[in-house]
């Protein structure tokens, strides 16, 4: 049955409407007024299941985007808490700032001890503001880099969770050299000798996502998206219109399945029907299983192999013709 606490998205409205009717009917039957309505209820329930299945198996790019941005979608901290309630948070770039938009820490996952880094969107208004809506500052990327170096020193695997619209386009961010912070992370991640797994859990927004995305394995949750520029940015530049976001989503091929087809993502992790926010426990468990499986594989590789494997992965990406 539908969880009424979940805010329906635009494309989910027909489903929500049907759910309302079912609920109404259930209430009437419950009051014992019209026992003959039982058949109708069964029919409606069947319709509901059918509609739900067809709706979520024919999603457009922009629908995935809406799911990826759903305000009730599990965020980094929701996963970390479910995986290891005793995970240890680490703070700060050691240079003056602790960016709440980048969460870092130490965590146990199965038999593995790992370093985790993840962008964090906020749930409440206060949290959202504090986390800058999941857009890290340069200091956030440098905080992550510090943890990467920690992982390298103690030979711990790294898991990065990505859910960010991108790096923050602000004055201080530019003055503190956002571009350099990202570039250094790209270079340093590529040179690590420990396993690195990055997961796009929601939005993978451009360079700000890639800054913790240079990994041996890239996983994407079923409804997550990954793009070179926000679809809004793409629409306004190429179509010169804010109304063409749906077209931009389709043209950029940014859904999990498309990104896998392009050879960038290695695995698409199934979400509960309707999206991870319908059952965060299930989503977290599915992702944990996938991560453990990849960790088991990667920890068999030597440090040298791990570095080479990661560099090769990105060395191959691209499409061109050589005449």
């Amino acid at each position, binding site marked *: 049955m539908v969880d009424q606490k979940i805010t329906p998205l635009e494309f989910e409205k027909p489903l929500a409407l049907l759910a309302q009717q079912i609920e109404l009917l259930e209430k009437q039957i419950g009051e014992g007024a019209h026992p003959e309505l039982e058949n109708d209820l069964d029919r409606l329930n069947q319709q509901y299941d059918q509609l739900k299945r067809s709706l979520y198996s024919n999603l457009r790019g922009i629908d995935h985007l809406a799911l990826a941005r759903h305000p009730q979608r599990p965020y980094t901290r929701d996963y970390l808490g479910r995986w290891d309630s005793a995970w240890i948070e680490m703070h700060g770039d050691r240079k003056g700032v602790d960016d709440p938009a980048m969460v870092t820490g130490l965590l146990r996952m199965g038999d593995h001890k790992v370093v985790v880094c993840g962008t964090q969107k906020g749930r409440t208004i206060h949290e959202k503001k504090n986390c800058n809506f999941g857009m890290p500052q340069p200091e956030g990327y440098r905080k992550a880099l510090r943890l990467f170096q920690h992982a390298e020193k103690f030979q711990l695997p790294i898991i990065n969770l990505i859910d960010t619209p991108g790096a923050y386009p602000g004055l201080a961010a530019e003055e503190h050299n956002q571009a350099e912070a990202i*570039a250094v992370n790209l270079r340093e991640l590529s040179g690590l000798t420990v396993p690195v797994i990055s997961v796009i859990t929601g939005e993978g927004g451009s*360079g700000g996502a890639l800054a913790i995305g240079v990994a041996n394995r890239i996983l994407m949750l079923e409804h997550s998206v990954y793009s070179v520029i926000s679809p809004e940015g793409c629409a306004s530049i190429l179509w010169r219109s804010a109304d063409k976001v749906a077209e931009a989503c389709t043209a950029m091929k940014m859904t999990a399945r498309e990104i896998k087809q392009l050879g960038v993502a290695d695995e698409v992790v199934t979400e509960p029907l309707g999206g991870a926010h319908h059952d965060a426990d299930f989503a977290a468990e599915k992702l944990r299983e996938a991560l453990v499986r990849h960790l088991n594989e990667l920890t068999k590789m030597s440090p040298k192999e791990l570095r080479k494997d990661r560099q090769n992965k990105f060395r191959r990406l691209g499409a*061109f013709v050589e005449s």
Partner: protein
Amino acid sequence: MFCSRGFLSENSFQRAAPRPEGLSDNDMDLKEWFANRKKKQEQAEVKQPLTTEEYCALWTQCFQCRELLYTKDLRENLHVCPKCLYHFRVGAEQRVEQLTDPGSFEEIDANLRSSDPLGFVDSEPYPKRLRDAERKSGLVEALLSGTATMEENPVALGIMDFGHFGGSMGSVVGEKVARLIEHAEEKRLPLILFSSSGGARMQEGILSLMQLAKTSSALKSFHDAGLLYISVLTEPTYGGVTASFAMLGDIIIAEPGARVGFAGRRVIEQTIRQKLPADFQTAEYLLSHGQVDMVVERTKLRETLVQLIEFHTKQNKPKSGSSQQTEPVIPGRAG
């Protein structure tokens, strides 16, 4: 050649109404006056009908100080305005000419061409945009790469050209940068990359984004091999190029006035809803915010690069019979 937009004001073509110079109307035969006027008009016409293109080819107006400059002089001054030092954008081929020993440049990877991995169509299909860009710029890609010598120092040189597809980085640019880095590492050459780019190329989607990782990853090995990489930031350098190889130089030089950043000025202004300082993201602003080692005028760029290369690659042999030393490189604004 550059033709600055909109500088051909009507005034620059207006000439004084033909007047019989040296003769007053009084002591002149009317017939002679008309003949004279006709002749004057013809003479004027011989000089006058410069088409816009011809005019542009001969003269260039400085974007900054509005001075009309004789294009040939401007070219000889490396496209730097002699009056206000405004640095005009220059193409990759011109850069090669300006920087390297004559005839020493050998292009590599000239045979790489963009494909259309996404089947991308906005108002036009990507392949058509590619053809248009090629026709307009005369280049097949936004990066020219190869090896050359500078004052006999061998170097690996990559130069982006903003004139081709806004200098955007797609798979080909990324691949060419990566191959150049690998070539430089293999031959143990110093590497110089000139950036000029609007960012990653949207039409190749996520694959363009991956070029940031590819080029930065290639630089990791190069870095570990102890080799020298000088990044030169030129007008304009933004987005994915800044957030990858452009900011990873052992030494970072910017040309005067060059605008360099990650996010564009307009996007930032819209986000923070406040006006940015006028010199925001200029080379000089970057210098004062610790982001580049030096701002070097184009006319001094070649000698600065050579000095830096020799400083890092040549053995420090004491010169016999002389205490003469090469001039130290002074950080900060040269020239």
